[in-house]
């Protein structure tokens, strides 16, 4: 299996993500430049965190028109796994590969801290190695992580079990106090209806080794690799 990590101008979690695949998981991984237009040979693509194009206009709004995104849309629509982390999630929403939008945090602050998220759906390729209800600890680092969608969209997310992660407390309770940014239903991550595209605000690549304080994030990558 070969994984590609996309680099946009302003990506800053690209090397962290690359490192986890290469050195922690020992997986064949390489970078994909934002102007590339050939994804042949890749089995999965990761859009890493950062501030692509300086977050100008809206987070992800300019990156979604990068040459590589045309190919990623095709790649995703053929059913291949695509995962967007933080800014990558914002790009997937702007590209309409996932429904809804991420607006500024309700507290008007950049939040950079460990959070707990609950595995709501373990029936996706990204969570198949995790028990339903399991609580994962990993950091968030964002200003626009407040998930919003209209009522109809939220209902269809629920009906189709597209909500994968919700912010919770350390005991796994999904409470308003555990919501760091105002997201509807404490949403921290969703998949598309087909289940091959994941967007999440927390950073699993920053929680992939014991020395970083948590290894919970690596479970998501292991699920993706089928190493479970």
């Amino acid at each position, binding site marked *: 299996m070969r994984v590609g990590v996309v680099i946009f101008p302003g990506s800053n979690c690209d090397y962290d993500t690359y490192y986890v695949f290469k050195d922690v998981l020992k997986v064949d991984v390489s970078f994909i430049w934002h102007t590339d237009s050939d994804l042949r040979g890749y089995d999965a693509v990761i859009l890493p965190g950062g501030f692509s194009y300086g977050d100008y206009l809206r987070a992800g709004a300019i990156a979604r028109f990068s040459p590589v995104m045309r190919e990623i849309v095709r790649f995703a629509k053929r059913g291949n796994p695509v995962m967007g982390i933080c800014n990558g999630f914002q790009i997937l*929403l702007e590209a309409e590969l996932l429904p809804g939008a991420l607006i500024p945090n309700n507290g008007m602050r950049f939040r950079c801290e460990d959070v707990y998220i609950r595995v709501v759906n373990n029936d996706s390729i990204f969570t198949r190695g995790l028990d339903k209800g399991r609580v994962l600890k990993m950091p968030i680092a964002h200003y626009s992580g407040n998930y919003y969608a209209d009522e109809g969209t939220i209902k269809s997310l629920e009906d189709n079990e597209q909500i994968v992660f919700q912010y919770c407390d350390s005991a796994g309770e999904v409470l308003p106090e555990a919501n760091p940014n105002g997201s509807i239903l404490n949403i921290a991550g969703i998949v598309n209806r087909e289940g091959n595209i994941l967007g999440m605000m927390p950073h699993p690549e920053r929680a992939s080794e014991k020395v970083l304080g948590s290894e919970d994030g690596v479970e998501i990558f292991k699920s993706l690799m089928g190493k479970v």
Partner: protein
Amino acid sequence: MRNRGFLFLSGREGRRMVKARIIVRYKPGILDPEGKTIYDALRSLGFEKVEGVETGKYFEITFAGDVDKNKAKELTTDACERLLANPVIQNYSFEIVEGDR
């Protein structure tokens, strides 16, 4: 000679640039924490008559010389739909104006 001078003037100073003035705002009901923070600041400064603040983004687009107002309207609508506004959370409005270069 008189004719040449007249042509010279109409060719340069007479050209009017077409511009779009665009405002993108959050849809009603979408949280605007920046607006709320500014509202709180204005109230604390003593602006008791201020009842609400909404923020938005302003854009001014200048079009090429051969674009008339109708064409500018069409191009601006397209630009708003495709890039400037996110229809999930934002509305846009604009006016097309003619101004000297």
